């Protein structure tokens, strides 16, 4: 999967979870950039991303990812579809 496709799909997941079609994520995006992205919504987001890319984050990764770029790297390495 190329980076562009990955970000397009990731972006759609963000739009669905936060119910906001105006969201565009980039590698530098963090929770501070999206209004509703708190620790509770983070759980929903992680689940939705895992289902979209048919992969699992490891427990340690979920709390240590600093931005969308780091998330995308893990996805790129582990995504099954």
């Amino acid at each position: 999967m190329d980076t562009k496709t990955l970000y397009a799909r990731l972006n759609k997941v963000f739009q669905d979870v936060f119910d906001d079609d105006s969201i565009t994520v980039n590698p530098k995006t963090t929770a501070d950039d999206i209004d509703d992205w708190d620790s509770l919504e983070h759980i929903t987001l992680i689940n939705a991303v895992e289902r979209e890319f048919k992969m699992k984050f490891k427990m340690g990764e979920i709390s240590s990812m600093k931005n969308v770029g780091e998330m995308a790297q893990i996805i790129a390495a582990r995504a099954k579809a």
Partner: protein
Amino acid sequence: MQELMYPFDAEFIIKKRKSLRRTLLADGSKRLKKKIAVFGGSTTNDIVVYLDLFLLNQGIEAVFYQSEYAQYWQDAMFPSEELLSFQPDIVFIHTTNRNISHYPTVKDDKATVQSLLDSEYARFEQMWTKIAETYHCPIIQNNFEMPFYRLMGNKDCSDYRGRMHFLTALNEKFYEYADKTEGFYINDINYVSASYGLKAWSDPSYWNMYKYAMCVEAIPFFSFNLSCIIKSVFGKNKKALALDLDNTLWGGVVGDDGVEGIRIGQETGESQSYYEFQSYIKSLKDLGIILTVCSKNDHQNAIAGLNHPEGALKPDDFIIIKANWENKDRNILETAAELNILPDSIVFVDDNPAERAIVSAQIPGIAVPEMDSVENYIMTLDGNGFFEVTTFNEDDLKRNEMYKANAQRAAQQATFADYHEYLQSLDMTAVIDDFLPVYLQRITQLSNKSNQFNVTTKRYTPTEMETVFESSEISSVTMGWCRLLSAKKMRKMPLCCTWNCG
């Protein structure tokens, strides 16, 4: 909303929860407003998010109070001002096996384990009593799901020191309490977790990371199950089934294949599946669910099919049989009118997706489950919790008889010269009586099911009605009760009139 009908796609619901909620709120339907207090032994946020969605879909718009993380016992025993002024209509206690304070160890003797069990249970009963005294509202309590590991292996379930054994014994004590306590309901997470798959359900990473007592994707299933109890308590159960015949109650088309050609009975796997489905429907009838037929068939073919010697259902089991070539939505509206129930309290069961689409588009609020293949029919109907039982009494057992008598009377009516003559022939007597405890359950049921004699349209839970019974201000809420007795076919038909002058 079809997306929230069982079997639903939890992944989709999780992702789209916000837009689904928006759509439900914008559909213009009128909903009951209810206040729900959630006392959690683990994180409850997502549980509330999905509960809210499913309740909106079932006609209830709820506002929620959630206790601080794991403060369920403190909140129940020492309620804050905020909670007291919230005045919940229902209290839900969300505890799981993660909230057991002391499990037995393999070193304990029998007496020690028994006292652990007693003290664990006492903690709960004390809390339920306090909640009932404080809020006089229904209480919903989770039972316990089985643990995700078995220290003693298979022996864990039979040895008194095993956790499986301990939780099972505790569950039994909960059931005893539920059995003798009006307005107290068990949310059976032991079943839901098993049905979901205990291994996935109890994935420990969700507890260790987020303090969720189950995995995130199981939460919609959990909340849906809970929503069924709540909507049932507040009178939002479905009342009747409108059943298609060909390829729904039997395999094949009776008009083409003939009675001998339809597949029902014990011959093949397929015919057994249809037989099992017919038996399930027949048991629903015993629960007081009204059975009707809505089928595109010649009437005589329909009756012949229902008289198949190998079938479990017979024409007599149905209150109304509409077998004709009219549009199904029209037949269902007529059925509803004849039964004097609202069309949205009907579940339409049909294997044909086109018929389902038309009916669900034409009749707002009607439930149209996706009946895809006969082996799934029972699970699809059962899983939707349309008829969730929260009270069950003799009237439910007799309901079909009563509706049948009504239908027969309607037919009889036609043979009298005028209505007056007909009424006289029924030889009715009315008894007007006080509020007696023996009528409590029925009066509560009526206040929830009908607006006809309930001009305030206020709904009462059994606990609230009991308060009204015992209230010293009974003069401001006057209730009349009368019973019609007929010498003919009509049996006892209690009516309940409530009006509030206060």
